[in-house]
């Protein structure tokens, strides 16, 4: 029944944290498409909720967190979109089974806003409980978050790591709780389509 424990722990995390820095690796984008692809390393959620704008590729802080300026926010193991019970915006999302590269078009429908007990984004990680590496949050392969932002633009996001430095989670260093990197540091890559189409080409 480990799986059940996992699920229970996964759904019940509730620590509020605040954010600090993010590092952007700009990759050149084709001129014909307004597609921006970025990998964000170690977005720091260790102190509380951290807000992020896919449109600008930057963290959102201060009073702007109460506006439509952010698209997604991270709070411990929960990821919220800016809508419904989570924000003032109309951002919607769904989770698609695919690899990042092969998802070339955003689905036309199937998007959801956040609601109580039913966030649009779920199932992006597993909790290992007592299986080695013990008590780890590991990102699930093939879970691509497709976001339709408040401005009607589409983005695809792959969460890579919940730990600082995007570590290899198969190593002994990671398995050892005393040497495991700090958690709530989100590394993810995303592609944002600025031209309003569903294309990720």
């Amino acid at each position: 029944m480990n799986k059940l424990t996992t699920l229970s722990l996964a759904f019940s995390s509730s620590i509020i944290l605040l954010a600090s820095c993010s590092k952007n690796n700009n990759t050149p984008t084709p001129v014909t498409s307004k597609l921006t692809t970025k990998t964000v390393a170690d977005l720091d959620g260790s102190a509380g909720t951290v807000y992020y704008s896919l449109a600008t590729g930057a963290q959102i802080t201060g009073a702007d967190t109460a506006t439509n300026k952010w698209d997604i926010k991270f709070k411990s193991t929960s990821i919220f979109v800016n809508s419904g019970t989570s924000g003032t915006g109309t951002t919607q999302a769904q989770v698609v089974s695919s690899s990042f590269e092969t998802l070339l078009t955003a689905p036309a429908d199937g998007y959801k806003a956040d609601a109580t007990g039913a966030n649009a984004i779920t199932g992006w990680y597993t909790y290992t409980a007592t299986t080695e590496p013990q008590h780890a949050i590991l990102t699930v392969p093939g879970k691509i978050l497709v976001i339709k932002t408040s401005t009607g633009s589409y983005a695809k996001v792959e969460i890579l790591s919940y730990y600082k430095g995007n570590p290899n989670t198969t190593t002994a260093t990671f398995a050892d709780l005393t040497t495991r990197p700090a958690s709530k540091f989100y590394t993810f890559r995303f592609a944002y389509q600025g031209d309003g189409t569903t294309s990720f080409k």
Partner: protein
Amino acid sequence: MRIYISFFLLTVFISIQSQAQKRDTLKKDTSTKQLKEVVITGTRTLKSLQQVPIPITRITAEEIKKKGLVRLNEVLSEQTGITILDDPHGQGIQIQGFDPAYTLILIDGLPLIGRTTGVFELSRITTNNIHRVEIVKGPTSSLYGSEAMAGVVNIITSEPAKGFSGGLSGRYGTNKTVDVSLNSAYKTDKFYISGFANRYSSGGYTLQPSSGIPTVSPFEGYTFNGKTAYRFDDNTSVKLSVRYYTNDQDSRFLVDTRYGAGKGTEKDFNIAPVITHRFSKKDVLVLQLYRSTYKTKSDIRYEDNGEVYDETYFNQTFNRAEIQNDYSLLDNLKITAGAGGQYETVAATRYTKQQSFTSGYGYFQADWIPVKQLDIIAGGRYDAHSVYKSQFSPKLAASYALSPKLTILGSVGKGYKAPDFRQLYLNFTNAEVGYSVFGYEEANAGIKRLQQTGQIETVLIDPSTLKRLNAESSTSFNFGFRYKPADKLYWTANVFRNNISNLIETAAIAIKTNGQSVFSYFNLNKVFTQGIETDLSYQLFKPLQIAGGIQYLEAYDQDVLNQIKAGQVFTKDPETNQTRVLKRSEYGGLLGRSKYTYNVRVNYLDEKTAINASIRAIYRGRYGYKDTDGNGIVNRDDEYTKGYVLVNASLSKLFMNDAIRVQLTAQNLLNYKDSLVILNLPGRLIYAGVAYNFGGK
């Protein structure tokens, strides 16, 4: 089985069989006996091992004694094509890639009950009072019904020899493990009575000494076995067997930050009267009654304040009446037909009320030898059940002797496993985490109950629309040969394929207001297993015998294979944590299946000094045991255990005209341990043993 043992008492076969092993028979050269060896489990009639068209292994008491083994799990762990699984619910066996729940365990042909989540704890069975073990591979539901999907293990207890006989034996060693047996029997031409008692106890062990928590807790088990038989005349005999097993085990574990401790008891009782009557040389009728009960009780309390942490009981009964008729229609055509009725009950902490099953069955088998070299067996069994769909399990098998040295054999058959009481009637809510599990029959009432108390948030699948739970079933193919070019060499091989459908799995049917799920049981998966098994033994020179066996096994989930084909299964590159599509070649198959297993056995018997040395190495290749990249399947190297070798050895010497045996036995000589993953390997075990036997012959 008892049927046939009774049959023995009546027939000329008595001469083959009744050289009961009251006296150690170490010095006997067994390699020449192969052709005369008979087996019974594959057909429910006596057949020569060379001719029977079904893959079957026969392990004699003599072999077991030479190796210094005393429990069934020890014996089976050294067999080619059999793996003892490490499972928290007990030591069960994997045959042809099937989980332990799919192998039927019999004593003298009668089923043993008392499984925990499908696992039958094999160390419950002592091998000190047995004549032989027979292992049938491939489905045998055509004769035995449910559970005989992967195969059947039949423990055939020994029959006393004439006169007064008896013996005692003991083995003591690592972890204060004691195994002591006492047996005595008296037999005349018409009557015998025999008694057997065994104590098996251990101080347990821990693989994490710093934790103060035992991996296996101390236990103390007793087996008592009594048999008596009376032959009225040449045609009619009666027999009664009684077996009782009881085991007490302490337990201690951590519950959050507190310790829970207590005692668990299990009791297993069987009684089996049988009447055998021979109408004529051609027609034998056997009426068999059987009752078996299995009870467990456990009372775990917090150590600090004595409050109850968990108090549970489980009571199961199994009752059967069966009649079988063996009729020789022609000299080369034997018909076996039987019918029976069964009544089973279970009452337990996790069930709403006492539940019961009623079932009836009939089976039929024709054994036809159209020409001397060819043996064709066709049969089938129909099971009608009060709760799940009726099952028909046919089987067709044939063997052909290409020469007196080489026999080829093939069989095709269906096997099934009925939904068990748990899958039908469980009513369980985990007190700590808060999820619930309902058996199929309980789901509707269970959901309603939870709804009335406002505990259900959303119903995912309306329980009134659930499909009736069907038995798990398989269609299997076995093809192989037995080759015995000379007395020195014996070589067998078998290729197998099992297509298994309707595997019963749990899935969520509702979400509770606490965010937890309510689960029930469904017929979901389709899996298959296939592979090849081969075993060879060779008498290198007179005292030295070498032998070895290999199994290659593949076991895959068909649905996963389809998803991989569709590019819908993913993994993460461990360096970058980026998703990529999984390749077919990366899929490691079902959990707990080793692709490669092999063993090497060497035995040295010096007849002059009556010293026997035996050493065996058993390799189990790596197997998947977890999923860390979150795709639900085994594919990455870190999701496998390491492969390992166990080396077992034994040295024994006989004294006083073979009446006394002194023995040193070692298991896991290399002291292999994997304290995090493999919990049933306690490390090196050393035992010293002595046995004394008198009378008989």
